[in-house]
């Protein structure tokens, strides 16, 4: 047992810190910290900074232009980025599609698409969920019929995150309607500019727009945009979901969020004293801080197993369940901490007003609380995670 990082780990952490200190503009970090929405330009700017340093595709092999870091390095990197309030890397091209193309794509597809992800030429979004296929992803209905050297796609995708910025979408489509549920699904790359595609933004209860509906009406997609084999898309999708699980515990985000809560609670007053000294509030903070200490170690245990080559199994469900509970609890604490000042709901001046006074320097805490309800819903809801875990547990016991 040795919970210490190596000298190399420490040196790497220092390097990351120095990079962030130099390259991350304070105004951009504040936008993240205060939960103000980021523009496409903000994301593009940050991606370009990371790409210039070679730190954009941390999980890609070097031959595709990635950093090819180990899990401990990635853990350190993600933690420092979160603590510095760096923008999250948009995962659709980098964390999701990239690994799929590297594993299942043709050489031509790899040569064409991968560099464009790194240099920002393409903004990818994900076409998985459908109105009738949420937790039951394999129930998807979007059809792709072969017509000469094209597929003709009809159907509807939803919850397409940041689809409004995207010029490309990777989709799961049904190419064989007669096959069993998980069979007959294919993995297709679709240009968003193709005629017949309509994107409708969905406003969420936090007032922001980050997800979209995407309609496909007789959309013609060249067959060379099929990834891997026809009707084998479910295999690729499952592979992708495993890769999506990087940083699933979100420990860095929780630590950054907890820092913010403490900062607010030092500034906020209750009965003339800092709120952080109120025993009830202090108890809430302490309890989640302790949960997070445990989570951080649980995460390191699993990360270190993964570093030793053992593939994480149901552990990723564990990290998802507990990690999101902690993150949501922290957004709840931030909301509590500001008291009546949680009410203003237009701090980014969306409705044309001047920015709302923010005497506690807290940012959009209520919006963040509501927005982060998504954590336990998307990427396989926590109910689905429990079911996966429970099924495995019942098998183990036999």
């Amino acid at each position, binding site marked *: 047992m040795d919970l210490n990082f190596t000298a190399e780990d420490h040196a790497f952490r220092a390097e990351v810190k120095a990079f962030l200190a130099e390259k991350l503009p304070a105004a951009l970090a504040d936008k993240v910290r205060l939960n103000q929405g980021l523009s496409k330009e903000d994301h593009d700017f940050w991606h370009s900074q990371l790409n210039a340093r070679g730190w954009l595709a941390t999980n890609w092999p070097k031959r595709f232009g990635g950093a090819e870091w180990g899990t401990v390095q990635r853990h350190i990197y993600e933690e420092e980025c979160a603590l510095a309030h760096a923008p999250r890397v948009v995962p659709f091209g980098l964390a999701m599609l990239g690994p799929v193309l590297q594993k299942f794509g043709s050489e031509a597809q790899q040569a064409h698409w991968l560099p464009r992800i790194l240099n920002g030429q393409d903004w990818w979004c994900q076409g998985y*969920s459908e109105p009738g296929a*949420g*937790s*039951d992803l394999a*129930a998807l209905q979007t059809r792709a019929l072969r017509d000469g050297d094209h597929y003709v796609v009809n159907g509807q995708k*939803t*919850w397409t995150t940041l689809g409004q910025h995207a010029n490309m979408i990777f989709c799961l489509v049904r190419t064989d309607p007669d096959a069993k549920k998980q069979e007959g699904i294919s993995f297709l790359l679709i240009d968003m500019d193709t005629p017949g595609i309509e994107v409708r933004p*969905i*406003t*969420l*209860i936090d*007032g922001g727009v980050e*997800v979209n509906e995407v309609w496909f009406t007789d959309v013609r997609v060249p067959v060379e945009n099929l990834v891997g084999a026809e009707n084998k898309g479910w295999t690729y999708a499952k592979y992708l979901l495993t890769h999506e699980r990087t940083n699933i515990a979100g420990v860095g985000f929780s630590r950054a969020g907890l820092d913010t809560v403490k900062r607010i609670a030092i500034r*906020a*007053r*209750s*009965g*003339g004293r800092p*709120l952080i000294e*109120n025993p*009830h*509030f202090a108890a*809430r903070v302490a309890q989640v801080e302790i949960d997070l200490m445990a989570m951080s170690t649980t995460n390191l245990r699993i990360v270190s197993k993964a570093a030793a080559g053992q593939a994480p199994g149901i552990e990723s469900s564990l990290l998802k369940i507990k990690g999101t509970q902690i993150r*949501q609890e922290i957004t*709840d604490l931030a*909301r*509590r901490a500001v*008291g*009546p*000042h*949680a*009410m*203003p*709901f*237009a701090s980014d001046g969306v*409705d044309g*007003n*001047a920015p*709302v*006074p923010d*005497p*506690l320097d807290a940012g959009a805490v*209520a*919006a963040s*609380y*509501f927005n982060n*309800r*998504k954590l*336990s*819903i*998307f990427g396989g*809801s*926590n*109910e689905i995670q*429990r*079911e996966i875990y429970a099924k495995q547990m019942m098998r183990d016991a036999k």
Partner: protein
Amino acid sequence: MNFELTEERQMLQDSLRRYLAGASGDVWAGLADLGVIGALFPEEKGGYGGAGFDLAVVFEELGRADLDVPLIDNALLPGLLMTAAGQDVEPLIAGGQKIAVAHGETAARYDLNWVETRADGDLLTGEKCVVVGGEAADVLIVSARHSGTADVQDGIGLWLVERDAPGLRLQGYEIAQGGRAAEVSLTDTPGTPLMTEGYAAIVQAMAAATLAEMAQTLGAMDVAVAMTQEYLTTRKQFGRPIGSFQALSHRLVDVMVAVEQARSMVILAAAHLEAEEPVRGRHISAAKNLIGRSGRLVAEECIQMHGGIGMTEEYALGRYAKRIVMADHRFGDTDHHLEQFIALGAA
């Protein structure tokens, strides 16, 4: 013992429910015409209600409606302060006047006595935060301190301040519950004195407002749970209604139990609104604490059981969830009222 509404309140409930079912946009005049504002005040003040159960009936119905009506902030709360000061509230009841109360301050958090705004004679200077309905008001009731330090109960007076009084700045914004509030800044702003020692009246008015907020939240909880119950029977995943999965249905049972407990607390608080302190305060605080806890459970679980659709602005559930959660930020939150309950118990 009897848990049935009186015939009058039953009628009020029915007519209000019918009216709200078809209402949209600005319903203020409609509510006034229906006599709803009058139901908030006792007969001797020109109304025909004002008891705890009158408030419970009106605001529970309002909470069921998918509308943002600042009836607490532009009618109940200012009206109670006006009547406590012996002022006429007939224009308010008729719907022709809107008043708002500018009392809260950042450093006060939820403490009703913490007032840093100063009164120099009748000139007021200070910052009031999150004044709900402030923009819509013709006149503001402003609390200010003419004597004492910020942490004492004595020395807090109330003034009427015209919306266009000199030195008054008002910055409006949308609020998460729906509707609008404003930050109010006063610099040597002249006011008309309303009460010299206003603390007791503030406590009393805030107790009523807290009850109203709780009843409204209860109404919203009822709707959110009914929507979720409906969703669980109609939405199918894996070839079955999702309500056939115990992972959801058993949790919805716990949510429903929480709502029944919340309903009991609204009844209990309403029954004690006219009691003396500390009995009234202890019941109000107990209720607000429980409703803060159950509200969070209800909102979060109903969103979770809906999945993504529960997070969209266009589907009503999300709006109800926001109203339920944000109610915890009004008139003292779960923790504040737990402390109050403990303090009043020891008294």
